[in-house]
């Protein structure tokens, strides 16, 4: 079922920051004009082994369907994952891929991206992988602004280890490892990413192919780290946590659409900002029109995006969806390449290395 999340759709309509000359795929070899790949080209021969009904299937289908749109050579696309149900993702895509170790995918992908300008590098991770064991790598990849697209499948539970609470599970959630309810306060992945100064932060949902694809498109277009939180249903251990967002009527009332230049609203409610910058949801009829928030993902200051991310509530009363932030900043990998390029004086020869080894103080012993 598809809900209208107020996202632009179709190639070419992705929001592009006007200051951002290079796209996320600049430098990656493209297919020759007139040639195109299909979803099938991105489907590997491996049998997909998620549980029946898992939200991962929908995300995989959306990604496989979206990748041809990039027009890139397939061999220049790499998916790197960590550990968890979602991290099996690379096996099912016929690109280059690495299924790495728990939490480390952003670090591994950073080394790859830093050394290979000609690759489109994607990280697939989950709430446990990215926010628990790999929290450090996630925030540092984001603050460095490495040109990586990080897809965080959030199902608010540990699936692969069979049902323990995760860093996004709500307080009181009863799981195998929290029989009396989880004591941990959850992370809000969007707030966390914004706090880490991520330059692109978005949220979407497994079941909404169109919205998901639009977000992927914008993420791919963005040069720098893109954190895409994808609400994903785990029918086995945490079934239905996002169901209210999948019901058309409920969704209309709860989902706050984030569309560039438009008011942030859900049904007959709008988001208003007070003098302190705190945002709340108010009935449109009662809202002071001058205080209604008009979304600007390109705002330099992340405060407004952060305030939007705080509108979340555990009961999913209001859920902002879409692109919270999309700003252009120099990327770590581009800057590293620039430093090297400006230091270089041409091809390194044996004589250059000889001179390097000799250093400044040498003496010669004659026979």
């Amino acid at each position: 079922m598809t809900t209208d999340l107020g996202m632009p759709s179709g190639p070419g309509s992705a929001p592009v920051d006007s200051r951002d000359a290079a796209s996320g795929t600049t430098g990656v070899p493209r297919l020759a004009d007139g040639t195109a790949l299909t979803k099938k080209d991105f489907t590997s021969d491996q049998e997909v082994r998620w549980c029946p009904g898992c939200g991962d299937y929908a995300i995989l289908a959306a990604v496989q369907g979206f990748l041809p749109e990039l027009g890139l050579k397939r061999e220049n696309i790499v998916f790197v994952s960590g550990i968890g149900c979602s991290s099996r993702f690379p096996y099912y895509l016929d690109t280059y891929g690495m299924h790495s170790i728990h939490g480390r995918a952003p670090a591994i992908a950073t080394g790859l991206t830093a050394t290979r300008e000609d690759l489109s590098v994607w990280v697939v991770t989950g709430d446990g992988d990215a926010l628990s064991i790999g929290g450090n790598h996630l925030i540092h990849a984001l603050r460095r602004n490495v040109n990586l697209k990080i897809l965080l499948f959030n199902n608010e539970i540990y699936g692969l280890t069979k049902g323990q609470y995760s860093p996004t599970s709500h307080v009181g959630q009863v799981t195998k490892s929290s029989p009396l309810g989880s004591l941990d306060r959850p992370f809000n992945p969007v707030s966390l990413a914004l706090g880490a100064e991520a330059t692109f932060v978005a949220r979407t949902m497994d079941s909404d192919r169109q919205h998901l694809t639009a977000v992927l498109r914008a993420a791919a277009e963005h040069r720098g780290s893109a954190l895409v939180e994808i609400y994903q249903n785990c029918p086995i251990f945490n079934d239905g946590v996002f169901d209210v967002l999948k019901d058309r009527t409920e969704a209309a009332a709860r989902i706050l659409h984030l569309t560039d230049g438009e008011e942030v609203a859900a049904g007959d409610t709008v988001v208003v900002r007070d003098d302190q910058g705190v945002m709340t949801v108010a009935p449109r009829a009662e809202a002071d029109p001058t205080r209604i928030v008009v979304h600007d993902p390109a705002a330099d200051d992340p405060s407004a995006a952060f305030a939007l991310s705080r509108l979340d509530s555990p009961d999913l009363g209001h859920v902002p969806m879409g692109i919270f932030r999309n700003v252009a900043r120099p990327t770590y990998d581009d800057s590293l390449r620039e430093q090297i390029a400006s230091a270089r004086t041409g091809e390194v020869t044996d004589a250059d290395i000889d001179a390097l080894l000799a250093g400044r103080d040498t003496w010669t012993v004659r026979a």
Partner: protein
Amino acid sequence: MSTKLVQKLDRVVIRFAGDSGDGMQLTGDRFTSETALLGNDLSTLPNFPAEIRAPQGTLPGVSSFQLHFADHDVLTPGDAPDVLVAMNPAALRANLGDLPRGASIIVNTDEFTKRNLAKVGYAVSPLDDGSLEAWHVHPVAITSIAVEALASFTDLTRKEKERAKNMFALGLLSWLYTRPTEGTESFLKSKFADRPEILEANLAALRAGYNYGETTEDFAVSYEVAPATMREGTYRNVTGNVALSLGLVAAAHRAGLPLFLGSYPITPASDILHTLAGLKRYGVATMQAEDEIAGVGAALGASFGGALGVTTTSGPGLALKAETIGLAVSLELPLVVCDIQRGGPSTGLPTKTEQADLLQALFGRNGESPVAVVAPSTPSDCFDIAVEAVRIATTYRTPVIVLSDGYLANGSEPWRLPRTAELPDIAVEFATEPNAVDAKGAPVFHPYLRDPETLARPWAVPGTPGLEHRVGGIEKADVTGNISYDPDNHDHMTRLRQAKIDGIADTIAPLAVDDPTRDAEVLVVGWGSTYGPIAAAVREARARGGRVAQAHLRHLNPFPANTGEVLRGYQRVIVPEMNLGQLSMLLRAKYLVDIESHTSVRGLPFQAGDLADVISAAVASVSHAPLKETAQ
């Protein structure tokens, strides 16, 4: 021109000691450089506290730099100093115990104040109470003479002038041992290029120290140590960390791969990060990662992309990297991990040396996870071992752990420069084409189809059309690399990974034995940084008339193919190690030879004299023992 007596010496050991803030490391470095340029062979041992500035004037705050130079080849920084330069009472107290009677002490009397004496528990100044009678004491008011020499520098504060006292001491020692100071002068000129006042003050203090030696009556004699006879060639002085850095750059160049270093700062490895970070001109990419795990992760990611991925660390960091190294074992990708060992466990002794990570390097991972392990034996050998590590990593697509240590890292010696073009040819070939056909005869790529000789799998980097494949830490089916939980396949793959590492022995040099009389019955085997002290001890034991053989392992996994044969050729095998017997345990387990372990974990290298006693005792015991049974 000096009219004083000049006396010739064949070797000298000097120790510069002072407060951490006194600039003793710099002083030692400069003196070393002067000495190297003069053509002496040399070896150095810096020794400094873990605290950047421990409380001033206290024993824990003492920093020292020892240098051994000679007109013949030098193997160690020397067991005991002939000259101690003590810049304060703490430096005197901390080092006096190492000073043989008759040695010289140059003391900075200005620092022997009541307060400073009290800080280190001297009730009366040792300069006044006759307690230093066994040594030649040269009291010099280093600080005040230096300050006086800078009287014309009216813009400098007294504190700034005092800071030049180390240059005064360097000048004095340079005169005493007839060292040229031009190198130091040009060094200062580039260091203080944008602070002309400070530069001039340092130069003035240096000259004042030199002139002081020449004019004062306290120093009646100066010394000369003639250049050592060294192999023809061009030399420089080099520390282990710099040699290792240069080795990585040269090896990457020879391999035709971009060098990527992912590293997190840690003592005593950080200098490699600093050195490589300054070599962007050579295409070197360095990343200071958020932690040790990210450092090795980024390196592995770079290797996946076809770069030479390297990470540098020390013991605690190696522990953190273990899981990623295990992934690299499974992915079968090149990765070079440099562990500059320090005292452990845990934080241990960050600035002191030890070689207790050998078993961690070999076995510190989950599952059967074999990796190649190599260890340099001297500071300059760090260069060659880096090239060897890269050769093994790229040829066999495996992680290689390099076990250097604090002693090699910071110690220095003359290094005969190799020619880049003559380094081993380690050019790498990436896979470019499918290597198999599927059931229908269509070309396919099998990422785990091995080279029959090396058992290495193809290195197919992203961007290569037609070779798209997935790798991961889950067990893979032989050949295809697809996920496999099959019991027989896992058994097979586990043995294959081991066989690949074992097979490296085919391409490494056999273990060489130095047994000049060819009839020694005692063999001393070492690994890593103990080479110098062991060789010096063996030399001394031989000088005492003992017949001793020496062998040194640079490859710890796998061992050279003839290792067992070598060990079994001797009646007694002694293995000195700066741990509690890790190599001994490996050799015993693998070769069933009754190794005698001799160990020390004091954070300092072995004293050659002590080791010589151990060896001599062993030699004496075999020569008294009944002769070996001969074949009937």
